């Protein structure tokens, strides 16, 4: 019963949404209600996740666990943001500017680190994985598109070269279409598994 109830709920929800889609626009109300449930449940889950995160780090601080200073920073910043947001409102320009001034450089720096890691990975991939079809194709495509990204060839304004560049730039569409088709088929199969109760959504 512990596993059967979530399974029944999942199957019924899928069937209801599917029926609402088939019988649109009459089924629009039902669809809106079900999707609003999804949004509310997701918001509650987010609140639970935030509370769990705060409690966990408060425990770390109380126990003096290794690295509790970072937990202290997290908890202090969390409660400061919460209090500031409750007092001034989430749409207050000062509050938004203050939060943005902290979050934006941090995330940008992290993205810069990702670029460096990608550089290192590009250098290591041949040494670690050796010469294979995957690594060779990756290396060739990376070199070609890096050269194209520099813009030197485009600035030459040669008609033939521009045609070649256009052809090369269209090539990713092949991969993108294949990727999208794969995603679509995967989602369809996943939906069938949920509808037929084959997906163990209720697994412990």
């Amino acid at each position, binding site marked *: 019963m512990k596993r059967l109830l979530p399974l029944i709920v999942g199957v019924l929800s899928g069937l209801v949404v599917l029926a*609402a889609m088939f019988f*649109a*626009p*009459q*089924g*629009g*109300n039902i*669809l*809106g*209600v079900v*999707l*609003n449930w*999804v*949004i509310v449940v*997701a*918001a509650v889950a987010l609140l639970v996740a935030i509370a769990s995160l705060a409690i966990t780090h408060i425990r770390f601080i109380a126990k003096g666990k290794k690295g509790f200073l970072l937990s202290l920073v997290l908890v202090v910043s969390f409660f400061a943001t919460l209090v500031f947001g409750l007092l001034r409102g*989430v749409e207050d*320009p000062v509050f*938004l*500017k203050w*939060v*943005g001034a902290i*979050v*934006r450089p*941090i*995330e*940008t720096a*992290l*993205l810069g680190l990702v*670029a*460096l890691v*990608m*550089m*290192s990975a*590009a*250098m*290591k*991939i*041949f*040494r670690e994985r*050796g*010469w294979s079809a995957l690594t060779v194709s990756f*290396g060739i495509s*990376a*070199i070609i598109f*890096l*050269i194209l*990204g*520099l*813009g030197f060839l*485009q*600035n030459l304004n040669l008609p033939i070269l*521009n045609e070649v560049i256009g052809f090369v*730039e*269209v090539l990713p*569409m092949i991969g*993108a*279409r294949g*990727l*999208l088709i794969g995603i679509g088929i995967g989602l369809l199969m996943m939906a069938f598994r949920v509808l037929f109760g084959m997906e163990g959504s209720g697994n412990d």
Partner: protein
Amino acid sequence: MTEDHSELNLCPNCGKENLPMATRCVHCGSEMESLFTIFGQPQVPEEEGEDSLPDIIEEIRTDPALQVPAEPEPNPEAQPSDQAEEQTLPGDQLPNWLAKVRERATEEEDAIGGLVSGTIAMDAVRGEEGSAGVEGEFNAWINRIREKSEQENSARVRQLPSESESSDEVPEWLQRIRALSPRPEEEITHEVKTTPAYADDLPKEWTDEALLELRRQALAEAHEQETEPLPDTGSSTEAEELPAEPVEEGTGEPAQQEPRFSETEFHNIPNDEEEYPEPAPVTDLNLQPSQEEEFPADDADEQEPETDDAKEAEKEFIQDISQQESIPKDVLLEEEPAREPEAHEMPEPQEPESLPAEAVSPGEEPEEEPGEEEQPTESAAVPPDLLLLRDQQDRASLLASLIEEEGRVTAGKQAARKPSGREGRLAVALLLIIGLIVSMLIGPASMPTDTPRSLPALALDEQIKTLAEGDRVLVVLDYQAATSRELEALAAPLLEQFHSQDVHLEFFTTQPSGLFLAQSLIAQTDLPEDTKVDYLPGSYLSLISSAVDPTISDGVGNPNPVKDLHTFKLVLLVSDSSDAIRGWLEQIAPWIETLNFAAVTTQMEAPVLIPYFDSGQLVGYAAGIADGNLSLQTAFNYRAFRVGLLLMLVMLLLGMISKGEADAIRREEESSE
């Protein structure tokens, strides 16, 4: 293959069996023409000859005429055993078989006959093989006995160090000797030897150098003790008349008695015989003949008990071995004399060298003697009991080399040290940092104004131009702070274009962080600062119902800030996630045919949007620096961007080159191996 062995021919040379059709012996290659027979053609004379041979011999044995040579009348059926008698018989009186034998003897070179010669050769070969096998087994058996005894002796010696640790201030090698031949006289003399060198602190582990030094000192003192009483022992009468001074004689005895215990026990000291041959036994053995010559009576008295003791010890040793190996004593006792001639022959060539050192000049210092310093190269200088077989010497040398290398740091095959790569990484990081810093310090380089834009970007421009004044455009902000720089640079010019056309813009964000990011975006445009940005929870999921049924959005209590999607002319998706854009295009767009969708995304996500643009689901999108009219933005450093791309390219090529180099080195190593 199935032939009977009785039909096989025996080689007259080697006596081994061959096939009947063989013309040459397959074993020795000798000719077998005379034995060649043809199948299917019975050769009566030879068969008769072969078959009649035993009969002939039997007749010879049983013929009474031949057994009694004095019988006057020869029996015509009798077979003469003596050729002289045969020649006396006339040809017509000869028996038929004898005539055949004589005829065959005249025809063949070998009068004995091939068959007989083959039989004799075969018997000889078998005899040799049998004797060789017996001899080989005997030798192997004796070798096993010797090896066993050596192993036992070495095991006994190994057990001694633990005992020697308990007895302080006594060298290890001396304790071994004491344990093997406990004689009070030797204990006294050897204790005197060891004290001067290592009286205070004896090393726990005896190295070869320490043993050598100890041996030199011990031998020097032994020699002194040995040579000093020599004048006393020169007269037999004094030696016999001094029973009250056994110690003085005893001090001289060990030099003569050392060979006795060295017969069996001195082998227990590894490498002694090989690396440091005992000079004392050599000189003693050499002294014996000289002393016998000079003092025959005295030596006879002294040697007799020694030889008796040696024989007794030898018998005991053999008895021990025989008990362990269940070997008959006779075998061992028979083998020992076989080595004695070698032993007695060995000292003789050494006599002239040792005599002047020992007997002629006994008063010299032992250290100055060349015999002690020099290692004898000939086995003649070694007592017979210390003689080693070749394999024993090889093993001893191997053991000596192992002991010599023990404790030393050997340069074994060490694994090739892999480069850590830290230096390389540091160099690459420095290169990146320097490149970026220099490119930024030089100053912003504007992007060329004539840089061609992508086709989707041009299509988006065309779509924006079609918008009329008052048209509603929904701008959905769905990106993170990390990508805000790239997306804002692309979206800001578009928003300005919208604003210039007096298009009504409504801003929504699906991310909580979108509120302050929208503020930054609006600040980069000419839009008023109080432009409202609403949060749209659930993203496009919250709009599906209103997209499906427009009447729902007009209902009371709808919390969505977007009341009706059908009223918008264009939806501009500013997102760093192709999945979010795909969700809008697949979940919302099918329900509202009049609504156009455009996108502003990162260059990384742009390839996924190409199919949607190609199918018309997207009227256009802008991605990358070329699509955003970045030449108008002074904050954008195009040079830094290009430097970053160049560095990425260099890193990629470096990775390829280093891999190729590593492969080439590995191939070279493999080929060299």
